[in-house]
């Protein structure tokens, strides 16, 4: 038997495979396909304090080994969450993690305070990296001083496990990882989407209503992996690797580079059972390599 358990701060995960925010709904959409409680955790769709209609259609474009999206944080707001979503997701027998977003620091703080009161929310992932909103989002995540401010404010407002999700659209990702660690984050997750764009040459128009959008999928994996590796060397808090993870082999690359856990994103669109398949594949790999504990391979490329 292989031990797949990991911890982030005081929070235990039965296994290191989580789902990425915005790609797994609230989990309910996947119940037809598998028991979502088998996963180590579920990161819910990004929530804002007020409801948001998101960006106009068209919101997505396919790209080589990837996709662009500009959903723009469409969600029904915190009141709706508490009334309608929380009662469902609190039944899952795994870590349910909220993904919080805002235009102003006060929004983040207000959300953090409200999630703090919801006993079955295992952690919050502070998203300062959404590229598809005009205010907040990536604006926080690409400026060191703003990042520090929002992380500090949320840390003060929230007593649980705090994960900070970083934007890859920066020159030195490790600076942002250090800031998060200094401000008391329990873990860092990365990457959110890379800012990209595509054009329909027949209509001569951008494919997305907002012109630019967030690139995800296997195309971004080499960049994500590099950034996870850089952050793992820069900070001591656990890293959650995200970006183009389609199969167990991809996930294992992230562990070897220094991630303690991974999030499966776009893969769930293409194969709704990807996340459990990845979980099974990781177990098989460890068994074949006769490694008894996932923790043994975390950051291994730096030690051999």
């Amino acid at each position, binding site marked *: 038997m292989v031990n797949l358990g990991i911890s982030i701060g005081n929070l235990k995960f039965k296994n290191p495979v989580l789902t990425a925010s*915005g*790609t*797994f*709904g609230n989990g309910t*959409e*996947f119940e*037809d*396909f598998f028991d979502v409680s088998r996963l180590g955790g579920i990161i819910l*769709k990004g929530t804002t304090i007020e409801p948001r*209609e*998101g960006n*106009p*259609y*068209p*919101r*997505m*474009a*396919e*790209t*080589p*080994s*990837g*996709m662009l*999206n500009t*959903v723009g944080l*469409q969600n029904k707001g915190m009141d709706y969450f508490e009334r309608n979503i929380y009662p469902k997701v609190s039944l899952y027998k795994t870590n349910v993690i909220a993904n919080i977003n805002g235009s102003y620091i006060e929004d983040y703080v207000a959300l953090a305070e409200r999630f703090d009161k919801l006993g079955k929310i295992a952690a919050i992932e502070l998203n300062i990296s959404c590229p598809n909103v005009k205010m907040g989002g990536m604006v926080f995540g690409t400026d060191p001083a703003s990042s520090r401010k929002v992380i500090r404010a949320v840390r003060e407002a929230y007593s649980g496990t705090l994960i900070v999700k970083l934007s890859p659209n920066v020159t030195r990702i490790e600076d942002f990882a250090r800031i998060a660690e200094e401000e008391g984050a329990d873990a860092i997750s990365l990457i959110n989407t890379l800012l990209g764009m595509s054009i329909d040459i027949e209509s001569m128009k951008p494919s997305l209503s907002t012109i630019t959008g967030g690139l995800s*999928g*296997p195309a971004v994996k080499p960049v994500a992996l590099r950034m996870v590796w850089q952050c793992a060397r820069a900070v001591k808090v656990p890293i959650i690797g995200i970006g183009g993870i389609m199969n167990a082999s991809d996930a294992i690359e992230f562990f070897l580079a220094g991630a303690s856990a991974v999030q499966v994103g*776009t893969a*769930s*669109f*293409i*194969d*709704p*059972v990807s996340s459990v398949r990845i979980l099974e594949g990781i177990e098989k790999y460890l068994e074949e390599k006769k490694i008894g504990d996932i923790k043994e391979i975390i950051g291994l490329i730096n030690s051999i």
Partner: protein
Amino acid sequence: MPKRIEDFVIRGNKRLNDDFFVLELAAGTPLPDINPGQFAEVKVEGSPETFLRRPFSIHDVDYRENTIKLLIQIAGKGTETLSGLRPGNSLNLVYPLGNSFTIPSAGEKVLLVGGGCGIAPMLYLARKIAQAGIVPGILLGFRNKKRVIEYEDYQEIGDVYLTTEDGSDGVKGLVTGHPVLMNSVFDRMYCCGPEPMMKAVARHCGNAGIACEVSLENLMACGIGTCLCCVVDTVRGNLCTCTDGPVFNTKDLKW
């Protein structure tokens, strides 16, 4: 009707003309209930340009044979690859997805309007309506005579009306110019096709006070309501075409 992910085996691949083909797919396990208007998300293997699944309406269902059919128009790399599938090849589907058309109540007069690949969801819908004891009117529009497909299949089920843009078959012009639309009184219309066509039909129905449902083909990444990419602006805000649709009552759409 839980959603499933399943490997089907290609039973047949029938080329209808330069652009269209019908895939007949055999399921390995008994088919679930499928309602007319629902669709499947198809994984296209072996085509580096097709990263995401491709959505297709379920064109027909045969519970005895345990098969479904997809009517597909070649539009790009993915459909091109699918057109090359041979009997015995396998194809992975996530299905049945989305809502479905409203089956009319006894005595209602209904017209199904399909243009181009928009005729795809109409065959199974026509069957279900016929099973409900109503003979549907079916108005099909094509560019020209050479592009007319499945005319006979529809004729077996309902009263078929035909238009071609160049007049080489049926009535010349667009579906919205066909006399049946103007002359007969319908309680309900169902429409799928190019957006301008659906909008024209919706406008006609709006003016005439006829209930009208259309099937939208918004770009989709997941097909199961999680990516929020396929939204359509409605009177109730942004809704997902893949779960709240693909069938919408046109009075809900901000057209």
